[in-house]
């Protein structure tokens, strides 16, 4: 009896078993989750601030802000502002320059990625991969200066050749023999900027081609080109598309390199060899320093349009790339 009575005092209280995290863990999780949500917050804030500053412009111009081809600031005799702002011409310029860049960069990048994955000896491969990574970290103003001082003199000559022999195609026609600072040259500079992006993503997808399929093709007597045509390209097509869209996103938003090379003229221009054009981003910085208050709002609104455009292109690209990469795993 006495034994039983003494027992409760000696036995330590059993530890409470719980799945509830400790205080330190709760703080840790809260902090990390809070910071994790930051990217969403920042993206929302960017959209919100640019849209709210551009609101006055959107209200006044309506749809004409997107489709209008005029950017004029006139004050009539009573001191009232009579202005039209529309970024249509610059949107066209943005797309033209980015398309030139894609047309040049995508084939080269795909060839380069295929060469790196299937042909290059490992030493050459290491050097080239390092160089391409390095190229991706070059500042954009370096591309701009290189494009202006080194690429432009030769590219002007290529443009003249294109115009002489292919001038009957409308895009290669020019209204006057002015070949410097054209969308074509700006597109070439952008192409050198997006080649590293497209190449590295294509390479990643190509290298995930299932080895058994490649070996099966070889076993059936295929040579390298047949393997690439029958196995690698169908498998990697999605990745190439996604990589090109990421490159497109970069090309649409590039500012400094385009401003350096292109002569910004506020008219829509489809003749890629003719020296006039522009894109939304370079339009913003070229008008920024002399902008009136109303124009500043309009430029911020233009920024909002550009932001949404690149956001959708990039989201689409991520979607396609993720699907392509997942298929390989």
């Amino acid at each position, binding site marked *: 009896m006495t034994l039983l009575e003494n027992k409760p005092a000696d036995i330590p209280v059993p530890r409470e078993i719980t799945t509830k995290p400790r205080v330190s863990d709760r703080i840790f999780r809260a902090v990390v*989750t809070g910071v994790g949500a930051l990217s969403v917050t*920042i993206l929302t804030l960017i959209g919100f601030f640019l849209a709210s500053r551009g609101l006055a412009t959107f209200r006044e111009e309506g749809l004409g802000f997107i489709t209008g081809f005029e950017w004029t600031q006139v004050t009539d005799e009573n001191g009232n502002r009579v202005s039209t702002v529309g970024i249509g011409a610059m949107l066209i310029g943005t797309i033209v320059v980015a398309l030139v860049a894609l047309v040049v960069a995508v084939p080269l990048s795909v060839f380069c990625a295929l*060469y790196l994955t299937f042909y290059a000896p490992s030493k050459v491969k290491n050097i080239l991969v390092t160089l391409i990574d390095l190229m991706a970290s070059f500042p954009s103003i370096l591309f701009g200066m290189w494009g202006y001082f080194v690429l432009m003199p030769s590219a002007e000559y290529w443009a003249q050749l294109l115009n002489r022999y292919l001038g009957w195609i409308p895009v290669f026609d020019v209204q006057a023999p002015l070949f410097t600072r054209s969308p074509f040259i700006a597109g070439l500079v952008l192409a050198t900027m997006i080649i590293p992006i497209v190449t590295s993503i294509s390479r990643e997808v190509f290298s995930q081609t299932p080895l058994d399929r490649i070996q099966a093709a070889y076993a059936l007597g295929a040579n390298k080109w047949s393997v690439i045509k029958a196995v690698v390209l169908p498998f990697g097509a999605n990745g190439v598309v996604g990589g090109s869209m990421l490159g497109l996103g970069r090309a649409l938003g590039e500012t400094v390199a385009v401003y350096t090379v292109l002569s910004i003229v506020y008219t829509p221009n489809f003749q890629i060899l003719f020296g006039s054009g522009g894109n939304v981003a370079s339009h913003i910085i070229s008008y920024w320093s002399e902008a009136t208050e109303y124009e500043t709002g309009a430029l911020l609104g233009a920024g909002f349009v550009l932001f949404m455009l690149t956001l959708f292109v990039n989201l689409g690209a991520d979607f396609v790339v993720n699907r392509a990469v997942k298929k390989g795993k």
Partner: protein
Amino acid sequence: MSTVNAQLPAPSRPWEKTPREVLPTVVILFLSLLTVAAIVELTALKGKLPYFLLFLPIGTAAQFLWARYKYGMKAAKDVVASSIMMTGAVAVFIPVVSIVGTTFVKGLPGLSLSIFTNDMSQASFMDPQGSGGLIHALVGTLFLILISVAISVPMGVLTALYLTEIRGPGSRFIEFMVQAMSGVPSVIAGLFIFSAVILTTPLDTSGFVAALALSILMIPTVTRASQEVLLLIPNDLREAGLAMGATQWRTVAMIVVPAAKSGLITASILGVARIAGETAPLLFTVGGADKLNTNPVFGVQSALPFYIWSGFRIGTDEAVQRSWSAILVLLIIVLILFTIARVVGSRSKGAK
């Protein structure tokens, strides 16, 4: 024993081409080069480009015909494909070499000790070399890098920890958003900070505000690179930590992060390399000083990309020369960062 060794046949490598197979290719390429040279000399074409443009189709066609005659149509197509891909690689290779080469050739003449000790407050861009310098821009860039690192590295690493350690309900969505954020054009980052900070708060253009804009570009880079590293840390380590009775916080702080340390450093350096040369956001935010200013919060500052930009826009020979020298300094900074990232990154891979 030695006689036995001597009788061993040399290992055969049936996949390698014999000299007999290589010789025709060399001869064909040489002949097509001669043809190209003849065409360039005899017709109105001039410059280096025709060599490239003519050699490509003529050389490829000659090889195609030879392979078709010797091995058949399939082999001929294979030859054409491989030469096209080789051309693609060369075409990607040329601009890198040209960019680095040009920068060194054009930048070196303007480089001297005095540009690292003077600012532009007593000189104008049009003055001859030797007066003025870029110390204000260099100091500004260093401040920008330091502040951006102080903001972006914790943010980026913590976001990556959320994606890899907590894997909460929204992590798929947040991953998507981080990728979208990495595609935000640099000019938009500048415009956003201009409208959200300069227009709405008492802060005016300064190094700190510019660093905020650069952080928007740097956070996604750091996040994505850190996430890749953290995913490589084996789960055994995390489980071992938890089994020892550590809380998740202790496991992450004392096991996961130290194990991924060098990878996280690489991620930060890659982020710095991404923003060191950004120009567009600075045009709205940094102000652009000519004088050395070591206070990043008050007063305008300058930065190397801004300095390069100003020199280019003025456009006289002297101003452009200053820009090239500044680009060379910037490129050397990027090259150093890139090399450090490579070395640290490869060491962390080797440790595994």
